[in-house]
């Protein structure tokens, strides 16, 4: 499978996966059969913005605007997409 992330791509949560805020953990999680991922800080911010319409480019732009002082977040965001796609947490719309 080609996992190259394009800025025009739209991703959403893979089937049977659930994304939610966990009060007890104070972080977002992705839940799926037999497992879960704790999303620390920025990773949760990326997932939060996937509404089925936002492109990767939109997410990058929005996060840059929200966190203007963060250094080089663009590569972190793309890295997060690559990881999430390779792990099967996200699917392309």
């Amino acid at each position: 499978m080609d996992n190259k992330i394009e800025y025009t791509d739209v991703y959403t949560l893979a089937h049977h996966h659930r994304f939610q805020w966990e009060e007890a953990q104070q972080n977002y999680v992705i839940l799926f059969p037999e497992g879960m991922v704790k999303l620390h800080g920025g990773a949760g911010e990326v997932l939060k913005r996937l509404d089925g319409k936002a492109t990767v480019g939109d997410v990058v732009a929005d996060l840059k605007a929200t966190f203007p002082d963060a250094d080089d977040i663009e590569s972190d965001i793309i890295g997060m997409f690559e990881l999430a796609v390779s792990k099967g947490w996200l699917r392309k719309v």
Partner: protein
Amino acid sequence: MEIITMAQQNNGVSSAVTHTQPLWLLAEVTYRCPMHCAFCYNPTDYDKHTQNELTTDQWIQALRDARKLGAIQLGISGGEPLLRDDIEDIVIEAKKLGYYSNLITSGVGLTEQRIQALKDGGLDHIQLSMHDITEDINNFITNTKTFQLKQKVAAMIKSHGYPMVLNVVIHRYNIGHMKEILEMAEALGADYIELANTQYYGWSLINRSQLMPTKEQVDEAEAITNTFRANPNNKMKIFFVVPDYYSDRPKKCMNGWGEVFMIVTANGDVLPCHSARSLPNMQFPNVRDADLGWCWKESPAFTKYRGDSWMKEPCSSCSEKENDLGGCRCQAFLLTGDADVADPVCSKSPYRHLIDKAIEDAKNPVFSEQPIVFRNDKNSKRVIAGELKDRLDEFHSLP
């Protein structure tokens, strides 16, 4: 990012987990079961716990209390949970509380009507146990006639839009069919398959010499699994639970004692692992009279083996102690008579010879051709009455 999986594997499991909260609540809602599997890990004296099951209200309260502590994955297990008629109510409550819920079932009792009600109630997935590609072995190892039923239930799970999660316990009788089992799962449309090499507790310990495959069989099965995984056309996720007897390092049992898992049994006992009640001189709290937060944070049962302060040599000075936390306390006790020693699977354990002997015994027809003791009420009553003692005693190195 921490990825935490339920299957006990030596890879992919985060070691950064702390015991600040339980993440998994396993509700063993009943020990009644229509299956009689030779490898069942349920307690051999389960018959003591079939008359005093928690009520629906008590389960709902336990779900609420555990969720407050942070439990988020819920396994509804047994026995066969569908023997209770309130699983639908439990599922509705689980959904309300924000659990990711999983029904762990043999498929017996799953009708169109019930699966629809579970779906409507918000159950997230169903894990179905399968046993083999052949009807003969399915029926033999479970001591039932359920092969056709399981095929039907698998199709029903798929048709209701559930992720298909199959669990296959691996033992001598099906390990030679690994390729065919994986192909069957793929053909059924499975999204996940757990290949759970038998671990020896409860009934499977009694039947250890009859169930244990050879090292060569295990190596071949693992190679077939890896080949299957490497094929990009195969989308199914495979969890391969390591057969620890053939390893020289123990598993990080339950992801660490009191680190992630909280188990509430049919009668309400609160345990850090399924077989903890096999340990001597331990008192386990019960949801009927103990607060779950206290159980998790402070009860002697959960604190006794949490972390590494309980360790003796060779564990306490071992550079790998963080990786496996000394292995399994129940296995240490069941095989050596001392729950505080290193898991005898470890090559650094002075008791490793017990594992090597078990492997040799499994090749010896004197042991391996003894009849299997199936998990059923009659045999459980025999265990409670002190019968089968010779069979159990052979596992201890006690003087």
